[in-house]
Protein backbone atom coordinates (compact mmCIF):
# COMPACT_ATOMS: atom_id res chain seq x y z
CA UNK A 1 0.00 0.00 0.00
CA UNK A 2 1.33 3.38 -0.87
CA UNK A 3 2.12 5.63 2.13
CA UNK A 4 -0.22 8.34 0.84
CA UNK A 5 -3.22 6.00 0.94
CA UNK A 6 -2.13 4.79 4.37
CA UNK A 7 -2.07 8.31 5.76
CA UNK A 8 -5.38 9.23 4.12
CA UNK A 9 -7.19 6.22 5.51
CA UNK A 10 -5.56 6.55 8.94
CA UNK A 11 -6.56 10.19 9.13
CA UNK A 12 -10.08 9.28 8.04
CA UNK A 13 -10.30 6.57 10.67
CA UNK A 14 -8.92 8.67 13.53
CA UNK A 15 -10.84 11.79 12.55
CA UNK A 16 -14.17 10.03 12.44
CA UNK A 17 -13.25 8.08 15.58
CA UNK A 18 -12.85 11.41 17.33
CA UNK A 19 -16.12 12.61 15.80
CA UNK A 20 -17.80 9.54 17.29
CA UNK A 21 -17.10 10.68 20.82
CA UNK A 22 -17.33 14.41 20.20
CA UNK A 23 -20.75 14.46 18.54
CA UNK A 24 -23.63 15.28 20.85
CA UNK A 25 -26.13 13.61 18.59
CA UNK A 26 -26.08 9.80 19.03
CA UNK A 27 -27.12 9.12 15.44
CA UNK A 28 -24.37 11.32 14.06
CA UNK A 29 -21.76 9.66 16.26
CA UNK A 30 -22.97 6.19 15.27
CA UNK A 31 -22.60 7.13 11.63
CA UNK A 32 -19.13 8.56 12.24
CA UNK A 33 -18.29 5.19 13.74
CA UNK A 34 -19.25 3.55 10.43
CA UNK A 35 -16.88 5.77 8.48
CA UNK A 36 -14.17 5.02 11.02
CA UNK A 37 -14.71 1.29 10.50
CA UNK A 38 -14.56 1.77 6.74
CA UNK A 39 -11.17 3.47 7.08
CA UNK A 40 -9.96 0.58 9.23
CA UNK A 41 -11.20 -1.91 6.65
CA UNK A 42 -9.35 -0.01 3.93
CA UNK A 43 -6.15 -0.32 5.99
CA UNK A 44 -6.69 -4.08 6.23
CA UNK A 45 -7.19 -4.23 2.45
CA UNK A 46 -3.94 -2.39 2.03
CA UNK A 47 -2.17 -5.07 4.04
CA UNK A 48 -3.61 -7.72 1.67
CA UNK A 49 -5.75 -9.00 4.55
CA UNK A 50 -8.84 -9.04 2.35
CA UNK A 51 -10.78 -11.42 4.52
CA UNK A 52 -10.37 -9.45 7.75
CA UNK A 53 -11.18 -6.22 5.93
CA UNK A 54 -14.39 -7.62 4.49
CA UNK A 55 -15.39 -9.10 7.84
CA UNK A 56 -14.72 -5.74 9.43
CA UNK A 57 -17.28 -4.14 7.12
CA UNK A 58 -19.74 -7.03 7.21
CA UNK A 59 -19.92 -7.40 10.99
CA UNK A 60 -19.19 -3.93 12.30
CA UNK A 61 -20.56 -1.63 9.62
CA UNK A 62 -23.42 -4.06 8.96
CA UNK A 63 -24.58 -5.87 12.07
CA UNK A 64 -23.18 -3.89 15.01
CA UNK A 65 -24.21 -0.65 13.33
CA UNK A 66 -27.79 -1.83 12.96
CA UNK A 67 -27.79 -2.80 16.63
CA UNK A 68 -26.65 0.70 17.57
CA UNK A 69 -29.29 2.29 15.38
CA UNK A 70 -32.03 0.21 16.95
CA UNK A 71 -30.82 1.00 20.47
CA UNK A 72 -30.71 4.71 19.63
CA UNK A 73 -34.24 4.60 18.28
CA UNK A 74 -35.39 3.00 21.53
CA UNK A 75 -33.85 5.80 23.57
CA UNK A 76 -34.80 9.38 24.26
CA UNK A 77 -32.44 11.40 22.07
CA UNK A 78 -33.21 14.74 23.65
CA UNK A 79 -31.70 13.87 27.04
CA UNK A 80 -28.32 13.12 25.50
CA UNK A 81 -28.25 16.36 23.51
CA UNK A 82 -29.12 18.47 26.55
CA UNK A 83 -26.32 17.09 28.68
CA UNK A 84 -23.71 19.68 29.66
CA UNK A 85 -19.98 19.13 29.30
CA UNK A 86 -18.35 18.45 32.65
CA UNK A 87 -15.14 20.54 32.56
CA UNK A 88 -13.10 18.71 35.28
CA UNK A 89 -14.00 15.32 33.82
CA UNK A 90 -12.99 16.55 30.35
CA UNK A 91 -9.64 17.81 31.60
CA UNK A 92 -9.03 14.58 33.50
CA UNK A 93 -9.84 12.58 30.40
CA UNK A 94 -7.46 14.62 28.27
CA UNK A 95 -4.69 14.20 30.88
CA UNK A 96 -5.16 10.44 30.93
CA UNK A 97 -5.11 10.26 27.13
CA UNK A 98 -1.88 12.28 26.98
CA UNK A 99 -0.26 10.13 29.66
CA UNK A 100 -1.31 6.94 27.94
CA UNK A 101 -0.07 8.10 24.53
CA UNK A 102 3.26 9.15 26.04
CA UNK A 103 3.62 5.75 27.69
CA UNK A 104 2.72 3.94 24.48
CA UNK A 105 5.25 5.93 22.44
CA UNK A 106 8.01 5.32 25.01
CA UNK A 107 7.34 1.59 25.12
CA UNK A 108 7.26 1.23 21.36
CA UNK A 109 10.46 3.30 21.02
CA UNK A 110 12.34 1.08 23.46
CA UNK A 111 10.87 -2.17 22.11
CA UNK A 112 13.47 -3.50 19.73
CA UNK A 113 11.22 -5.48 17.41
CA UNK A 114 9.05 -2.41 16.98
CA UNK A 115 11.79 -0.67 15.03
CA UNK A 116 12.78 -3.50 12.74
CA UNK A 117 11.16 -3.89 9.35
CA UNK A 118 9.28 -7.13 8.90
CA UNK A 119 10.06 -9.51 6.08
CA UNK A 120 7.31 -9.44 3.48
CA UNK A 121 4.85 -12.29 3.81
CA UNK A 122 4.22 -14.08 0.55
CA UNK A 123 1.23 -16.37 1.06
CA UNK A 124 0.60 -18.95 -1.62
CA UNK A 125 -3.08 -19.24 -0.72
CA UNK A 126 -5.91 -16.69 -0.26
CA UNK A 127 -5.92 -15.43 3.32
CA UNK A 128 -9.39 -16.80 4.08
CA UNK A 129 -8.10 -20.25 3.11
CA UNK A 130 -5.12 -19.80 5.44
CA UNK A 131 -7.38 -18.82 8.32
CA UNK A 132 -9.48 -21.94 7.76
CA UNK A 133 -6.37 -24.13 7.71
CA UNK A 134 -5.09 -22.58 10.93
CA UNK A 135 -8.44 -23.02 12.62
CA UNK A 136 -8.40 -26.73 11.76
CA UNK A 137 -4.78 -27.48 12.42
CA UNK A 138 -4.09 -25.58 15.63
CA UNK A 139 -7.24 -24.08 17.05
CA UNK A 140 -9.92 -26.69 16.71
CA UNK A 141 -10.84 -26.71 20.40
CA UNK A 142 -10.97 -22.90 20.72
CA UNK A 143 -13.18 -22.90 17.62
CA UNK A 144 -15.69 -25.17 19.37
CA UNK A 145 -15.42 -23.07 22.53
CA UNK A 146 -16.40 -20.05 20.42
CA UNK A 147 -19.41 -22.01 19.22
CA UNK A 148 -20.46 -22.66 22.83
CA UNK A 149 -19.82 -19.01 23.66
CA UNK A 150 -22.09 -17.86 20.85
CA UNK A 151 -24.75 -20.31 22.04
CA UNK A 152 -24.46 -18.78 25.51
CA UNK A 153 -24.79 -15.34 23.92
CA UNK A 154 -28.02 -16.30 22.19
CA UNK A 155 -29.36 -17.73 25.47
CA UNK A 156 -28.44 -14.39 27.01
CA UNK A 157 -30.48 -12.61 24.34
CA UNK A 158 -33.48 -14.75 25.18
CA UNK A 159 -33.18 -14.15 28.93
CA UNK A 160 -32.77 -10.43 28.35
CA UNK A 161 -35.84 -10.28 26.15
CA UNK A 162 -38.03 -12.19 28.57
CA UNK A 163 -37.24 -9.69 31.28
CA UNK A 164 -37.72 -6.72 29.00
CA UNK A 165 -41.06 -7.62 27.54
CA UNK A 166 -42.84 -8.36 30.83
Amino acid at each position, binding site marked *: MSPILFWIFSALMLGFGAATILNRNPVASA*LSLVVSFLGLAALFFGLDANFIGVIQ*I*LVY*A*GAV*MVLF*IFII*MLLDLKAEQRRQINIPALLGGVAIVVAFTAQLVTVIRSYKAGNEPFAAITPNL*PDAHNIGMTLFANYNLPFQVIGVLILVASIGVVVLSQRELK
Partner: protein
Amino acid sequence: MNFIDLLKRIPEICKTPETLPLEGKKLILDFVTWLGSLVGIAVPPWVLTLVNILVVIVAIIAVFLIMFALMSVWERKILARAQNRYGPNRVGPWGLFQPVADGIKMLTKEDIVPRNADKVVHFIAPIVMLVPALILPVLLPYGRGMVAIDLSVGILFFFAVGAGSEVAIFLAGWSSRNKYSILGAMRAIAQMISYELPLVMSAVIVALVAGTLSPTGIVEAQGGYQFGFFPNWFVFTPWGFVACVLFYFSALAESNRSPFDLPEGESELVAGHLTEYSGFKYALFFMAEYVGMFAINGLLVTLFLGGYQAPLPFLTFIPSWCWFFIKLAFLAFSLVWVRATMPRFRIDQMMQFAWKFMLPMSFAALFSAAAWHYAGRGLLGWGISAVLVAIPYFALGYFCFTRHHSADNRRYLFSE
Protein backbone atom coordinates in the same frame (compact mmCIF):
# COMPACT_ATOMS: atom_id res chain seq x y z
CA MET B 1 1.36 1.33 -36.24
CA ASN B 2 -1.03 3.49 -38.23
CA PHE B 3 -4.65 4.36 -38.09
CA ILE B 4 -5.66 2.24 -41.11
CA ASP B 5 -4.39 -0.89 -39.34
CA LEU B 6 -6.52 -0.05 -36.33
CA LEU B 7 -9.56 0.42 -38.56
CA LYS B 8 -8.87 -2.85 -40.35
CA ARG B 9 -8.91 -4.68 -37.03
CA ILE B 10 -12.54 -3.74 -36.33
CA PRO B 11 -14.14 -6.22 -38.80
CA GLU B 12 -11.68 -8.91 -37.67
CA ILE B 13 -12.72 -8.41 -34.05
CA CYS B 14 -16.37 -8.58 -34.98
CA LYS B 15 -15.85 -12.01 -36.53
CA THR B 16 -15.28 -13.58 -33.11
CA PRO B 17 -18.09 -12.30 -30.87
CA GLU B 18 -16.83 -14.39 -27.92
CA THR B 19 -13.85 -12.12 -27.33
CA LEU B 20 -15.41 -8.95 -28.76
CA PRO B 21 -15.40 -6.89 -25.51
CA LEU B 22 -11.85 -7.88 -24.57
CA GLU B 23 -10.50 -7.19 -28.07
CA GLY B 24 -12.43 -3.94 -28.13
CA LYS B 25 -10.67 -2.88 -24.95
CA LYS B 26 -7.29 -3.76 -26.50
CA LEU B 27 -8.22 -1.73 -29.58
CA ILE B 28 -8.93 1.33 -27.43
CA LEU B 29 -5.57 0.91 -25.69
CA ASP B 30 -3.80 0.63 -29.05
CA PHE B 31 -5.69 3.71 -30.19
CA VAL B 32 -4.30 5.60 -27.21
CA THR B 33 -0.79 4.39 -28.08
CA TRP B 34 -1.36 5.57 -31.64
CA LEU B 35 -2.51 8.97 -30.37
CA GLY B 36 0.71 9.15 -28.37
CA SER B 37 2.81 8.31 -31.41
CA LEU B 38 0.92 10.98 -33.34
CA VAL B 39 2.05 13.58 -30.83
CA GLY B 40 5.48 12.00 -30.92
CA ILE B 41 5.73 10.58 -27.39
CA ALA B 42 5.77 7.04 -26.07
CA VAL B 43 2.70 6.67 -23.84
CA PRO B 44 3.89 5.76 -20.33
CA PRO B 45 2.48 2.49 -18.93
CA TRP B 46 0.61 4.15 -16.08
CA VAL B 47 -1.48 6.11 -18.59
CA LEU B 48 -2.37 2.87 -20.33
CA THR B 49 -3.31 1.31 -16.97
CA LEU B 50 -5.44 4.33 -16.19
CA VAL B 51 -7.15 4.20 -19.59
CA ASN B 52 -7.72 0.49 -19.12
CA ILE B 53 -9.36 1.10 -15.72
CA LEU B 54 -11.47 3.97 -17.04
CA VAL B 55 -12.69 1.89 -19.99
CA VAL B 56 -13.74 -0.89 -17.61
CA ILE B 57 -15.51 1.49 -15.23
CA VAL B 58 -17.29 3.43 -17.97
CA ALA B 59 -18.38 0.19 -19.64
CA ILE B 60 -19.81 -1.22 -16.41
CA ILE B 61 -21.63 1.97 -15.44
CA ALA B 62 -22.96 2.49 -18.98
CA VAL B 63 -24.23 -1.09 -19.31
CA PHE B 64 -25.98 -1.00 -15.97
CA LEU B 65 -27.51 2.41 -16.60
CA ILE B 66 -28.81 1.32 -20.00
CA MET B 67 -30.25 -1.79 -18.39
CA PHE B 68 -31.84 0.39 -15.71
CA ALA B 69 -33.40 2.64 -18.36
CA LEU B 70 -34.71 -0.30 -20.37
CA MET B 71 -35.96 -2.03 -17.25
CA SER B 72 -37.97 0.98 -16.16
CA VAL B 73 -39.93 0.80 -19.43
CA TRP B 74 -40.00 -2.95 -19.57
CA GLU B 75 -41.34 -3.27 -16.05
CA ARG B 76 -44.17 -0.86 -16.75
CA LYS B 77 -44.93 -2.64 -20.01
CA ILE B 78 -45.10 -6.07 -18.38
CA LEU B 79 -47.11 -4.78 -15.43
CA ALA B 80 -49.49 -3.14 -17.86
CA ARG B 81 -49.90 -6.35 -19.83
CA ALA B 82 -50.49 -8.24 -16.58
CA GLN B 83 -53.26 -5.76 -15.77
CA ASN B 84 -54.71 -5.79 -19.28
CA ARG B 85 -53.53 -2.32 -20.35
CA TYR B 86 -50.98 -1.03 -22.89
CA GLY B 87 -48.45 0.71 -20.70
CA PRO B 88 -46.22 3.58 -21.89
CA ASN B 89 -46.39 3.75 -25.71
CA ARG B 90 -46.31 7.47 -26.58
CA VAL B 91 -42.65 8.52 -26.34
CA GLY B 92 -40.73 7.05 -29.24
CA PRO B 93 -41.32 3.63 -30.81
CA TRP B 94 -43.07 1.31 -28.29
CA GLY B 95 -42.46 3.93 -25.63
CA LEU B 96 -38.74 3.20 -25.67
CA PHE B 97 -37.75 6.82 -25.03
CA GLN B 98 -39.87 6.99 -21.89
CA PRO B 99 -36.77 6.90 -19.61
CA VAL B 100 -35.35 9.95 -21.42
CA ALA B 101 -38.58 11.82 -20.82
CA ASP B 102 -38.59 10.68 -17.20
CA GLY B 103 -35.01 11.80 -16.76
CA ILE B 104 -35.74 15.27 -18.13
CA LYS B 105 -38.79 15.52 -15.91
CA MET B 106 -36.78 14.52 -12.84
CA LEU B 107 -34.05 17.03 -13.68
CA THR B 108 -36.47 19.92 -13.99
CA LYS B 109 -38.59 19.13 -10.92
CA GLU B 110 -38.29 21.40 -7.93
CA ASP B 111 -36.23 19.85 -5.15
CA ILE B 112 -38.28 20.25 -1.99
CA VAL B 113 -36.51 19.83 1.34
CA PRO B 114 -38.75 19.95 4.41
CA ARG B 115 -37.88 22.74 6.79
CA ASN B 116 -37.40 20.41 9.76
CA ALA B 117 -35.11 18.05 7.87
CA ASP B 118 -31.41 17.65 8.54
CA LYS B 119 -30.37 19.30 5.27
CA VAL B 120 -26.86 17.87 4.96
CA VAL B 121 -27.79 14.26 5.71
CA HIS B 122 -30.88 14.60 3.54
CA PHE B 123 -28.55 15.51 0.66
CA ILE B 124 -25.94 12.83 1.43
CA ALA B 125 -28.36 9.90 1.76
CA PRO B 126 -29.12 9.33 -1.97
CA ILE B 127 -25.40 9.50 -2.77
CA VAL B 128 -24.54 6.97 -0.05
CA MET B 129 -27.31 4.79 -1.47
CA LEU B 130 -26.04 4.92 -5.05
CA VAL B 131 -22.32 4.37 -4.39
CA PRO B 132 -22.53 0.76 -3.09
CA ALA B 133 -25.05 -0.10 -5.81
CA LEU B 134 -22.69 1.13 -8.53
CA ILE B 135 -19.65 -0.61 -7.00
CA LEU B 136 -21.34 -4.02 -6.74
CA PRO B 137 -21.34 -4.97 -10.47
CA VAL B 138 -17.55 -4.64 -10.65
CA LEU B 139 -17.14 -8.08 -9.05
CA LEU B 140 -19.30 -10.07 -11.44
CA PRO B 141 -17.77 -12.22 -14.18
CA TYR B 142 -19.62 -11.28 -17.37
CA GLY B 143 -17.94 -13.71 -19.69
CA ARG B 144 -14.87 -15.89 -20.14
CA GLY B 145 -11.97 -13.76 -18.87
CA MET B 146 -14.29 -10.78 -18.57
CA VAL B 147 -14.08 -9.83 -14.92
CA ALA B 148 -12.95 -6.42 -13.75
CA ILE B 149 -11.50 -7.57 -10.44
CA ASP B 150 -11.15 -11.18 -9.37
CA LEU B 151 -10.95 -10.75 -5.60
CA SER B 152 -10.27 -13.90 -3.57
CA VAL B 153 -13.08 -12.85 -1.23
CA GLY B 154 -15.34 -11.62 -4.03
CA ILE B 155 -18.67 -12.88 -2.71
CA LEU B 156 -18.05 -11.54 0.78
CA PHE B 157 -17.07 -8.18 -0.61
CA PHE B 158 -20.42 -8.17 -2.36
CA PHE B 159 -22.34 -8.62 0.89
CA ALA B 160 -20.11 -6.20 2.78
CA VAL B 161 -20.65 -3.42 0.25
CA GLY B 162 -24.35 -4.24 0.15
CA ALA B 163 -24.55 -3.43 3.87
CA GLY B 164 -23.94 0.20 2.88
CA SER B 165 -27.48 0.53 1.54
CA GLU B 166 -28.86 -0.24 5.02
CA VAL B 167 -27.02 2.76 6.38
CA ALA B 168 -28.21 4.89 3.45
CA ILE B 169 -31.84 3.97 4.01
CA PHE B 170 -31.54 4.82 7.68
CA LEU B 171 -29.92 8.14 6.80
CA ALA B 172 -32.76 8.95 4.43
CA GLY B 173 -35.44 8.02 6.93
CA TRP B 174 -33.84 9.70 9.89
CA SER B 175 -32.87 12.95 8.18
CA SER B 176 -36.37 13.55 6.82
CA ARG B 177 -37.81 14.04 10.34
CA ASN B 178 -41.01 12.44 9.18
CA LYS B 179 -42.84 9.67 11.00
CA TYR B 180 -43.54 7.74 7.84
CA SER B 181 -39.91 8.01 6.76
CA ILE B 182 -38.45 6.75 10.01
CA LEU B 183 -41.01 3.95 10.24
CA GLY B 184 -40.23 2.88 6.69
CA ALA B 185 -36.49 3.03 7.33
CA MET B 186 -36.73 0.95 10.51
CA ARG B 187 -38.88 -1.61 8.74
CA ALA B 188 -36.46 -1.72 5.82
CA ILE B 189 -33.48 -2.33 8.10
CA ALA B 190 -35.28 -5.02 10.12
CA GLN B 191 -36.25 -6.71 6.87
CA MET B 192 -32.79 -6.44 5.34
CA ILE B 193 -30.97 -7.90 8.33
CA SER B 194 -33.47 -10.74 8.61
CA TYR B 195 -33.02 -11.75 5.00
CA GLU B 196 -29.28 -11.19 4.95
CA LEU B 197 -28.69 -14.41 6.88
CA PRO B 198 -30.31 -16.79 4.35
CA LEU B 199 -28.66 -14.76 1.58
CA VAL B 200 -25.16 -15.17 3.00
CA MET B 201 -25.77 -18.76 4.06
CA SER B 202 -26.86 -19.89 0.60
CA ALA B 203 -23.80 -18.21 -0.92
CA VAL B 204 -21.61 -19.95 1.71
CA ILE B 205 -23.02 -23.32 0.65
CA VAL B 206 -22.06 -22.70 -2.96
CA ALA B 207 -18.59 -21.56 -1.89
CA LEU B 208 -18.15 -24.72 0.19
CA VAL B 209 -18.99 -26.90 -2.79
CA ALA B 210 -16.97 -24.89 -5.30
CA GLY B 211 -14.05 -24.51 -2.87
CA THR B 212 -13.54 -20.80 -3.52
CA LEU B 213 -15.05 -17.43 -2.69
CA SER B 214 -14.13 -15.87 -6.02
CA PRO B 215 -17.09 -15.49 -8.43
CA THR B 216 -15.03 -16.57 -11.43
CA GLY B 217 -13.93 -19.74 -9.65
CA ILE B 218 -17.54 -20.55 -8.80
CA VAL B 219 -18.63 -20.12 -12.42
CA GLU B 220 -15.75 -22.33 -13.59
CA ALA B 221 -16.81 -24.99 -11.07
CA GLN B 222 -20.17 -25.15 -12.85
CA GLY B 223 -18.68 -25.76 -16.28
CA GLY B 224 -19.03 -28.97 -18.26
CA TYR B 225 -22.01 -31.22 -18.87
CA GLN B 226 -23.30 -34.34 -17.14
CA PHE B 227 -24.00 -37.20 -19.60
CA GLY B 228 -22.87 -34.90 -22.38
CA PHE B 229 -25.90 -32.61 -22.34
CA PHE B 230 -27.02 -31.82 -18.79
CA PRO B 231 -25.34 -28.66 -17.42
CA ASN B 232 -23.47 -28.91 -14.13
CA TRP B 233 -25.18 -25.84 -12.73
CA PHE B 234 -25.75 -25.86 -9.01
CA VAL B 235 -29.43 -25.10 -9.43
CA PHE B 236 -29.93 -28.63 -10.79
CA THR B 237 -28.90 -30.30 -7.55
CA PRO B 238 -31.44 -30.61 -4.70
CA TRP B 239 -29.42 -28.49 -2.27
CA GLY B 240 -28.62 -26.01 -5.02
CA PHE B 241 -32.25 -25.66 -5.99
CA VAL B 242 -33.23 -24.94 -2.39
CA ALA B 243 -30.35 -22.50 -1.93
CA CYS B 244 -31.22 -20.81 -5.23
CA VAL B 245 -34.84 -20.27 -4.23
CA LEU B 246 -33.74 -18.98 -0.81
CA PHE B 247 -31.29 -16.63 -2.49
CA TYR B 248 -33.90 -15.42 -4.96
CA PHE B 249 -36.41 -14.47 -2.29
CA SER B 250 -33.75 -13.02 0.00
CA ALA B 251 -32.54 -10.91 -2.92
CA LEU B 252 -36.12 -9.73 -3.47
CA ALA B 253 -36.32 -8.74 0.18
CA GLU B 254 -32.91 -7.08 0.15
CA SER B 255 -33.85 -4.90 -2.79
CA ASN B 256 -37.21 -4.06 -1.15
CA ARG B 257 -39.25 -5.31 -4.08
CA SER B 258 -42.74 -6.64 -4.07
CA PRO B 259 -43.91 -8.79 -2.26
CA PHE B 260 -41.37 -7.55 0.29
CA ASP B 261 -42.04 -3.86 -0.32
CA LEU B 262 -43.44 -3.16 3.14
CA PRO B 263 -40.94 -0.38 3.84
CA GLU B 264 -42.45 1.54 0.93
CA GLY B 265 -45.97 0.17 1.22
CA GLU B 266 -47.88 3.16 -0.12
CA SER B 267 -51.16 2.11 1.47
CA GLU B 268 -49.71 2.41 4.97
CA LEU B 269 -46.45 4.38 4.89
CA VAL B 270 -46.90 6.76 1.91
CA ALA B 271 -43.47 5.93 0.43
CA GLY B 272 -41.44 4.95 3.49
CA HIS B 273 -38.00 6.50 3.58
CA LEU B 274 -38.63 8.17 0.18
CA THR B 275 -41.58 10.23 1.40
CA GLU B 276 -39.73 13.55 1.67
CA TYR B 277 -37.63 13.11 -1.47
CA SER B 278 -38.40 14.77 -4.76
CA GLY B 279 -36.66 15.69 -7.98
CA PHE B 280 -33.40 14.02 -8.89
CA LYS B 281 -32.68 12.83 -5.36
CA TYR B 282 -35.67 10.56 -5.69
CA ALA B 283 -34.41 9.42 -9.09
CA LEU B 284 -31.06 8.52 -7.51
CA PHE B 285 -32.81 6.27 -4.99
CA PHE B 286 -34.77 4.70 -7.80
CA MET B 287 -31.59 4.16 -9.81
CA ALA B 288 -29.73 2.68 -6.84
CA GLU B 289 -32.56 0.28 -6.19
CA TYR B 290 -32.58 -1.00 -9.76
CA VAL B 291 -28.81 -1.20 -10.22
CA GLY B 292 -28.55 -2.99 -6.88
CA MET B 293 -31.27 -5.37 -7.98
CA PHE B 294 -29.42 -6.16 -11.21
CA ALA B 295 -26.20 -6.68 -9.30
CA ILE B 296 -27.64 -9.08 -6.78
CA ASN B 297 -29.43 -11.03 -9.50
CA GLY B 298 -26.18 -11.10 -11.42
CA LEU B 299 -24.69 -12.74 -8.35
CA LEU B 300 -27.55 -15.24 -8.39
CA VAL B 301 -26.73 -16.05 -12.02
CA THR B 302 -23.09 -16.45 -11.04
CA LEU B 303 -23.72 -18.65 -8.02
CA PHE B 304 -26.47 -20.95 -9.23
CA LEU B 305 -27.30 -20.50 -12.91
CA GLY B 306 -23.82 -21.21 -14.22
CA GLY B 307 -22.84 -17.60 -14.87
CA TYR B 308 -21.70 -17.24 -18.45
CA GLN B 309 -21.92 -20.99 -19.27
CA ALA B 310 -24.25 -22.06 -22.06
CA PRO B 311 -27.13 -24.30 -20.96
CA LEU B 312 -26.59 -26.92 -23.69
CA PRO B 313 -23.34 -27.95 -25.40
CA PHE B 314 -24.50 -27.08 -28.95
CA LEU B 315 -25.43 -23.55 -27.85
CA THR B 316 -21.84 -22.56 -27.09
CA PHE B 317 -21.64 -20.65 -30.40
CA ILE B 318 -23.50 -17.82 -28.65
CA PRO B 319 -20.81 -15.81 -26.82
CA SER B 320 -20.50 -16.33 -23.10
CA TRP B 321 -21.24 -12.74 -22.15
CA CYS B 322 -24.53 -12.95 -24.03
CA TRP B 323 -25.53 -15.89 -21.88
CA PHE B 324 -24.90 -13.91 -18.74
CA PHE B 325 -27.18 -11.10 -19.89
CA ILE B 326 -29.81 -13.48 -21.26
CA LYS B 327 -30.04 -15.13 -17.85
CA LEU B 328 -30.11 -11.75 -16.13
CA ALA B 329 -32.92 -10.57 -18.41
CA PHE B 330 -34.86 -13.72 -17.64
CA LEU B 331 -34.48 -13.07 -13.91
CA ALA B 332 -35.49 -9.43 -14.36
CA PHE B 333 -38.62 -10.58 -16.15
CA SER B 334 -39.40 -13.01 -13.35
CA LEU B 335 -39.04 -10.20 -10.79
CA VAL B 336 -41.68 -8.14 -12.58
CA TRP B 337 -43.84 -11.21 -12.91
CA VAL B 338 -43.65 -11.79 -9.15
CA ARG B 339 -44.49 -8.14 -8.57
CA ALA B 340 -47.53 -8.38 -10.80
CA THR B 341 -48.73 -11.56 -9.12
CA MET B 342 -48.03 -11.51 -5.39
CA PRO B 343 -49.76 -9.37 -2.76
CA ARG B 344 -47.69 -7.66 -0.10
CA PHE B 345 -46.70 -9.50 3.08
CA ARG B 346 -47.81 -8.40 6.51
CA ILE B 347 -44.84 -7.49 8.71
CA ASP B 348 -45.21 -10.35 11.21
CA GLN B 349 -45.57 -12.84 8.34
CA MET B 350 -42.49 -11.44 6.69
CA MET B 351 -40.30 -11.68 9.79
CA GLN B 352 -41.53 -15.15 10.63
CA PHE B 353 -40.92 -16.31 7.09
CA ALA B 354 -37.32 -15.16 7.33
CA TRP B 355 -36.48 -16.56 10.74
CA LYS B 356 -38.65 -19.65 10.95
CA PHE B 357 -38.51 -20.89 7.40
CA MET B 358 -35.68 -19.43 5.33
CA LEU B 359 -32.95 -19.64 7.97
CA PRO B 360 -33.61 -23.28 9.02
CA MET B 361 -33.96 -24.23 5.35
CA SER B 362 -30.57 -22.72 4.60
CA PHE B 363 -29.04 -24.90 7.35
CA ALA B 364 -30.82 -27.90 5.86
CA ALA B 365 -29.41 -27.03 2.44
CA LEU B 366 -25.92 -26.87 3.96
CA PHE B 367 -26.24 -30.35 5.50
CA SER B 368 -27.71 -31.61 2.25
CA ALA B 369 -24.82 -30.16 0.24
CA ALA B 370 -22.35 -31.88 2.57
CA ALA B 371 -24.15 -35.19 2.05
CA TRP B 372 -24.13 -34.63 -1.72
CA HIS B 373 -20.39 -34.02 -1.69
CA TYR B 374 -19.39 -36.89 0.59
CA ALA B 375 -21.65 -39.35 -1.28
CA GLY B 376 -19.55 -38.74 -4.36
CA ARG B 377 -21.49 -36.00 -6.22
CA GLY B 378 -23.33 -38.65 -8.24
CA LEU B 379 -26.86 -39.95 -8.46
CA LEU B 380 -26.63 -41.51 -4.98
CA GLY B 381 -25.62 -38.15 -3.51
CA TRP B 382 -28.43 -36.55 -5.48
CA GLY B 383 -31.00 -38.86 -3.88
CA ILE B 384 -29.67 -38.52 -0.32
CA SER B 385 -29.48 -34.76 -0.58
CA ALA B 386 -33.01 -34.58 -1.99
CA VAL B 387 -34.29 -36.51 1.04
CA LEU B 388 -32.28 -34.28 3.37
CA VAL B 389 -33.91 -31.11 2.07
CA ALA B 390 -37.38 -32.60 1.67
CA ILE B 391 -37.70 -33.65 5.34
CA PRO B 392 -37.00 -30.19 6.82
CA TYR B 393 -39.15 -28.60 4.13
CA PHE B 394 -42.24 -30.54 5.09
CA ALA B 395 -41.47 -30.38 8.82
CA LEU B 396 -41.05 -26.61 8.73
CA GLY B 397 -44.11 -26.24 6.58
CA TYR B 398 -46.04 -28.20 9.17
CA PHE B 399 -44.73 -26.11 12.08
CA CYS B 400 -44.91 -22.71 10.42
CA PHE B 401 -47.90 -22.65 8.22
CA THR B 402 -50.50 -25.14 9.42
CA ARG B 403 -51.00 -23.60 12.87
CA HIS B 404 -53.56 -20.85 12.72
CA HIS B 405 -52.24 -17.57 13.99
CA SER B 406 -55.19 -15.60 15.23
CA ALA B 407 -55.05 -11.97 14.29
CA ASP B 408 -56.54 -10.69 17.53
CA ASN B 409 -53.52 -11.35 19.75
CA ARG B 410 -51.54 -8.63 17.99
CA ARG B 411 -50.88 -5.60 20.17
CA TYR B 412 -50.50 -2.16 18.68
CA LEU B 413 -48.88 -0.47 21.68
CA PHE B 414 -45.81 0.78 19.88
CA SER B 415 -45.19 1.77 16.36
CA GLU B 416 -43.75 -1.01 14.27
